[in-house]
């Protein structure tokens, strides 16, 4: 029996939150029941994902083919180390985000909570689907589903700004999806297969260079939208008008991480390091990503709205992952993969903090945060940890990924990339620390009394994510063996070689 279970677990994990959606919708009049479904689904999903861990850790994959989507291409899942890595992060943080959402949505008396929770659940299904997708078509299928499921989240407020952001998001994401489809079709026409292959389905083949470049640009644009690579990033700060748990989900767990997940899938499993290097594609990616890292940080400086600043910081950090992948070295991939989880925990902490502040005090501008650290020490303490990590300082897991990324830059002989990472760390510090300084060391505005912490539904999750950020640095294999999984994934991609 247990083996059977495992064989079905991928699909069940995808399905669980999708199945919860109607229950959530039906319970729209009874918030407690509705939230119960959400939490139950989150827990079950995490459990299912977790159940796949032993098999994958042992170096295997769990494969499941449901039906044939198109000739030669099935709707199939293939849980490898990399996919499981991502799924663990996404489903694990979903639990925390769900708790947080309860606090946020009720504390803010948001409208349309049912739609919110339902879309949320579908998004998670799509994310896990992306993580487990065994071939490009399945990947695209869930990629598009994710686009649609997050659209209601982006336009949640339904005001002009939100709708404009939603339009932009849809336009970008759907165009990107189309490019992915076309690129995949080309690959299928060339190779007759769309199955992901560690090391790249295009590696080793003899393909026309021009075509390779065009298709690579298609894929780059395709995954570039969701991973916010400039100049395709502009939807992301615009989507900031969404409620904070959405931003947290978008920016830390689901959408953008699916984007960078896609980047690594593309680099490591579609094109493959070998072909990337042979056709000079990695340099294209590296230039785009490197420029994004620096420019986005410079723009973040100018933002006076806390969430906007976080958004631009996200844009920058997503490109860390892309740049890491573009290095094509073992350390580079390791750093990129580790940064997925590192940025997830750190940025979700920061967004949770921003949300807690907003719900509790209705402050959203950085200039208003004077002295808030004295009223909300736990929240802002977590904020410090998140900021430290994003600046790449120990002992936060952001440092660990940066360490590997720097190693990767050296291995690749790309000193410019190393410079980008180091400079970006400084820039991050330079735009995050003034916030901390204000929060703790400026006096509160005259006449303001200490107002205490936000609801525990919000404070506990954000403390937990901050704790995770530290714990995952000290013990990278804590709980779910993320580090080992990353190692497995990387040795798959690079064929177990490449370490100096």
């Amino acid at each position, binding site marked *: 029996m247990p083996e059977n279970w495992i064989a079905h677990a991928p699909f069940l994990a995808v399905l669980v939150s999708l199945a919860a959606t109607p229950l959530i919708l039906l319970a729209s009049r009874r918030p407690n029941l509705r939230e119960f479904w959400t939490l139950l689904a989150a827990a079950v999903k995490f459990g299912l994902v977790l159940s796949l861990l032993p098999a994958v850790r042992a170096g295997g994959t769990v494969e499941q083919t449901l*039906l*044939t*989507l*198109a*000739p030669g291409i099935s*709707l199939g899942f293939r849980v490898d180390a990399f996919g499981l890595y991502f799924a663990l992060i996404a489903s694990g943080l979903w639990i925390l985000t769900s708790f947080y959402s309860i606090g946020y949505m009720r504390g803010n008396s948001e409208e349309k909570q049912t739609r919110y929770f339902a879309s949320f659940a579908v998004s998670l299904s799509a994310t896990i689907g992306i993580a487990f997708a065994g071939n490009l*078509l399945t990947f*695209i*299928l869930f990629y*598009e*589903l994710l686009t*649609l499921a997050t659209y*209601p989240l982006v*336009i949640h407020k*339904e005001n002009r700004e939100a*709708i404009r952001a*939603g*339009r932009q998001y*849809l*336009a970008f994401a*759907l*165009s990107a*999806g*189309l*490019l992915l*489809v*076309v690129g995949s*079709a*080309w690959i*299928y*026409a060339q190779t007759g297969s769309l199955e992901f292959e560690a090391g790249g389905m295009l590696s080793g083949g003899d393909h026309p260079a021009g075509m390779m470049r065009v298709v690579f640009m298609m894929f780059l644009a395709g995954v570039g939208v969701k991973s916010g690579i400039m100049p395709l990033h502009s939807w992301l700060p615009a989507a900031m008008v969404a409620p904070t748990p959405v931003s947290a989900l978008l920016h830390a767990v689901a959408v953008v991480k699916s984007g960078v997940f896609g980047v690594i899938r593309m680099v490591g499993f579609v094109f493959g390091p070998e072909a990337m290097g042979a056709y000079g594609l990695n340099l294209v990616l590296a230039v785009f990503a490197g420029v994004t890292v620096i420019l986005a940080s410079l723009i973040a400086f100018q933002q006076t709205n806390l969430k906007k600043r976080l958004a631009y910081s996200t844009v920058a950090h997503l490109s860390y992952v892309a740049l890491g992948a573009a290095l094509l070295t073992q350390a580079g991939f390791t750093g990129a993969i580790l940064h997925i989880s590192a940025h997830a925990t750190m940025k979700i902490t920061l967004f949770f903090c921003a949300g807690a502040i907003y719900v509790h005090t209705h402050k959203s501008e950085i200039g208003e945060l004077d002295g808030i650290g004295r009223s909300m020490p736990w929240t802002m303490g977590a904020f410090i940890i998140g900021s430290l990590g994003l600046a790449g300082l120990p002992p936060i897991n952001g440092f660990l990924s940066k360490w590997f990324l720097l190693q990767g830059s050296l291995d690749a002989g790309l000193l410019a990339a190393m410079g980008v990472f180091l400079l970006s760390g400084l820039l991050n510090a330079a735009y995050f620390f003034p916030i901390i300084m204000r929060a703790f060391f400026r006096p509160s505005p005259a006449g303001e009394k200490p107002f205490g912490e936000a609801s525990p539904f919000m404070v506990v999750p954000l403390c937990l994510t901050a704790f995770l950020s530290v714990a995952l640095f000290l013990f990278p294999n804590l709980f779910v063996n993320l580090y080992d999984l990353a190692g497995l994934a990387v040795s798959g991609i690079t064929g177990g070689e490449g370490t100096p």
Partner: protein
Amino acid sequence: MTGDHSVVLIPVIFFTAALLVPLCRRGSRRWPYWVALVSSLLGVAASGEALWRTLSTGEAIHYHLAGWRPPMGIELIADPLSAFFCLLITVVTVFVLWHGRSLVESETPGKAVPFYSCVMLLLGGLSGILLTGDLFNLYVFLEISSIAGYALVAIGDKRAPVASFRYLILGTIGASLYLLGVGFLFMTVGSLNMGDIASVLQTRAMSPVEISALLLIVLGIGVKMALFPLHGWLVDAYTHASSTATSLIAPIGTKVAAYVLIRALFYLFDTDLVREGIPVMNALAVMGAVGMLWGGVLAMAQTDLKRMLAFSSVGHVGYIALGIGLASPLGFIAAVLHTLNHSVMKAVLFLICGSLRQKLGDNALDSMNNSLRLRMPWTMAAFTLAAISMIGLPPTAGFFSKWYLVLGSLEQGKWHWVIVIVLSSLFSVVYFFRVLERVYLRPQEGAEEEPAPARDESRPSMLAPVLILSASLLLLGLGNVMIVNHLIRPMLPAGF
């Protein structure tokens, strides 16, 4: 032998019903409806039986009317292609009629008898086109169905007669071109039976007369199919006809024309010559591609939902034409699959137009706002699904026909078609999300004062077909491989 009669039964049922409908006007007011519905159901059964049989035996069913053998007598042929199309149009008809039960009465009061009679006539004509093995006979059926179509369009709103007249003029020109082409062929080959002609044409080089015949047939049918730039009749006709009429004509009318095109190009003439000797395939592809863009651009501009969908139909006919124009197995599959998918999608969308018109009084986009999602959540959900399928997102049906089309284009290295497909998909994103945004997000004017609108869903008889059809879009998408392998591959002409 009895089983073979199912082939002839299909048109016979419909023609009989067309006569029966006026006869039963004396009975209950519901009788015409029931007659039409039951005949359609019988039609479904008969075509299903024919399809099953031809697929299971792997051979076409030939039926000789009155026992006269060709080339003297008229032959009806049910091969997988024609039987499949028969099944398609009858099934769509069943759903449309189911949905239209009350709508016909309310939109065109007192015209139920002519309406249902024309519907039956139309179906008879179309099924005749699909099943006949004789070119002239096809013309006859074409005219029957066209005349029924003109009449159906005319039973619409105030502007319908003008639109119908337009349709009539252009449709007649198309039919005449076709007839001219058939005449040319008869001149040189001396036969009207398709099998005969094919056996002659495919063994020798074509003369200029025959080439002219081919072009005339293609263009004549092109008019019927509303192939760009021959689509001048379509938009007004779809817009001004009654809801049920549009939802009937739009999904099946142009598709049957597409069938004729496929039949003529791939079965009648020498496929190799058609592919390489003369530019007809390329011309078709170009016309289809331009149509895709043209339809998309104009659809974005429309202020009326029905009109928007009409332009979108022009675009989607372009997909089918492009698939045919590729003249490859993948293109063929794409064309046939898209015929199926588009029929279902358009049926859903036009049926929803009907439901909306019943509630709102018209289909103007300006009158749509977010009260709709509260009043008609299920209808709107179905609309959304159909829209997504039209845009072509996986795993809905619309994605897969595009997938085959893209594969087909890439297979021949025709990148430009891929760009066109991408652009036209983007256009459809724009025009469908324009609607969805209104339906889901645009606040009602003065919404603050008024209480939230109560649930006001269409009646079950209208909702059910919509929901079933739109759900089937998912099934068609997920089951596309089965459809392609078991239905469409057997249709592939011998040349492939």
